[in-house]
């Protein structure tokens, strides 16, 4: 029997992915609370669907959808993550020490995702409440149709940022190559300064609130209007 202080080490070079994920799911009821996964070798769907307060360290690069739909767990990927890391995250924290591929934290509903490096295109696409901090740059079409939550970018943002955005808060420290439809620069109010400051602190980002600009919805496309057809 394991105790709460034991670290369960799983070598994916010898343990099937299915077995690992099943054990992580079963840990909701009983089992180790701290896990270290070695030799992920770009595996897809790794550590997905966890629903427990676990600490999971993945040593190496991962494939698609790592920690997808995570609830409660704190997952660290010590490497780069493939497409859709933390997709539809519900709660907990996911940290990527390297870079994240496309659709990082797509449709995320809660929790925190921190990317120490860069995030590729469509970061935070359709996000619904998750908080995302990218210490480097983000690619084009990020926060497309973003509904709620917060996206912090310490580097530069690619083209069409926040296209068709709803109520997500976006903060960018560097340059923005282009804003998408209905996304505009907005005033950084006290509430936003507090929110941004908190996220910079919890993510360990070396940046100051005053260095950022805020972007959000102009709310001009919220109701279809034929006079706006050219903007869609």
């Amino acid at each position, binding site marked *: 029997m394991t105790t709460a202080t034991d670290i369960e080490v799983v070598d994916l070079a010898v343990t099937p992915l*299915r077995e690992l*994920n099943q054990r992580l799911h079963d840990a909701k009821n009983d089992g180790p609370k701290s896990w270290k996964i070695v030799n992920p070798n770009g595996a897809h*769907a790794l550590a997905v669907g966890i629903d427990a307060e676990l600490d999971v360290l993945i040593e190496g690069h991962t494939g698609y959808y790592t920690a997808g739909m995570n609830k409660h767990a704190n997952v660290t990927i010590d490497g780069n993550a493939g497409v859709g890391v933390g997709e*539809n995250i519900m709660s907990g924290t996911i940290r990527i020490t390297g870079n994240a591929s496309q659709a990082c934290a*797509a*449709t995320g509903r809660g929790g925190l995702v921190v990317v120490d490096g860069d995030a590729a295109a469509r970061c935070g696409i*359709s996000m619904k409440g998750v908080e995302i901090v990218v210490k480097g740059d983000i690619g084009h079409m990020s926060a497309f149709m973003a509904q709620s939550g917060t996206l912090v970018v310490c580097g530069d943002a690619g083209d069409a940022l926040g296209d068709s955005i709803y109520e997500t808060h976006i903060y960018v420290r560097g340059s923005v190559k282009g804003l998408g439809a209905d996304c505009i620069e907005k005033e950084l109010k006290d509430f936003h300064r507090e929110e941004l400051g908190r996220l910079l602190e919890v993510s360990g980002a070396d940046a100051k609130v005053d260095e950022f600009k805020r972007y959000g919805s102009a709310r001009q496309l919220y109701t279809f209007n034929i006079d706006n057809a050219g903007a869609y």
Partner: protein
Amino acid sequence: MTDFDPTGPSGTNWHPGLKESYIFDRNTIHEIRRAASQGIYDIRGFGAKRKLPHFDDLLFLGASMSRYPLEGYRERCSTDVVLGTRFAKKPIHLKIPVTIAGMSFGALSGPAKEALGRGATMAGTSTTTGDGGMTEEERGHSEILVYQLLPSRYGMNPDDLRRADAIEVVVGQGAKPGGGGMLLGQKISDRVAEMRNLPKGIDQRSACRHPDWTGPDDLEIKIQEIREITDWEKPIYIKIGASRPYYDTQLAVKSGADVIVLDGMQGGTAATQDVFIEHVGLPTLACIRQAVTALQEMGMHREVQLIVSGGIRNGADAAKALALGADAVSVGVAAMIALGDNDPAYADEYAKIGSAAGFYDDWHEGKDPTGISTQDPELAARFDPEQGGRRLNNYLKTITLEIQTLARAAGKSNIHNLEPEDLVALTIESAAMAQVPLAGTDWIPGQSRDGF
């Protein structure tokens, strides 16, 4: 006899000599005038209303000298179907080969969703969520519930994935293959807004592409993720709008589908541009054989089950789809009508909103007098979910009896033994699409007669 006939086609001033243009008929002229007035395309619900080749263009041959029928009320004709035998640990067992198609809470009222669950459960079949998440009403009243994973991901969460009985990845919809959706602001109540994480009262767009995968190679990995999250228990469906059914079916199989839902262009929608509904996609009749051929060539027919939807109205339609190779059919518009949609009892109220019973398709406006396609609490309260559930059950049982009647007449002890050989076509077009002989001939357009 006078030269004025007040009973002429719909206009009281018609008389011989007034010749209506075939291409600029009154509906066309009305639409041009409406467009000129409003400056926006027409959005509506329902499905394609134009005349298309359909199941009515096929006939069953029945038994005769060389085929032995089964006794109608004595000999067994099985109707059950198992879905998800390819990979799922827990396949779905349906008592009848007719399922309820995905319709969202948001498009439909809570009581209407409850009624769909009640009726489907009484009949021994499944119902399906829609773009808006899973409600307690439908989960609580649906013994078998299919949970849709849509591009918008409204309401998506792992808890509902786990309490679903199957998961349907929606790639497309027959009414609008290649299109997304729009739930107009007037239907966004507090509850709908909360489920979708969006402000109340604004138009809610549903994306046409999934946010985290972009092709069949990605989809294969996405399905792997869903299977891992749900411990490989649930059957995974892929729903495609009929446009390139041969290739799409093969790609869906390659992507790891347990079940393919193929939705023809007569399939219903809650709110889509009329131009999209009427001018994009393939008629349901035209896509079944292509999908079945794709499955057969891969050795996957009956291993990956095929559900066909889009304009299924009765047991004859369903039996013909089964004979062409489907494992089950799905109903959406017909299920709404069974619940009470377009009920003539509300004729006066339909007239007040500029429509008529039998024609009403403005489901997106939220003014449905029957309380079915609305979020208005007063209208929704008119609808009795228990009675609606009973009506749906009656309808589903009638369809099933009709399928059995036709199957027994063809000598089949299991509805899945129906086959193309049992069918003939009334038109050259339907013969070509369904790949069955033109009635009274041995001619299947596109096929050589060698071998007959």
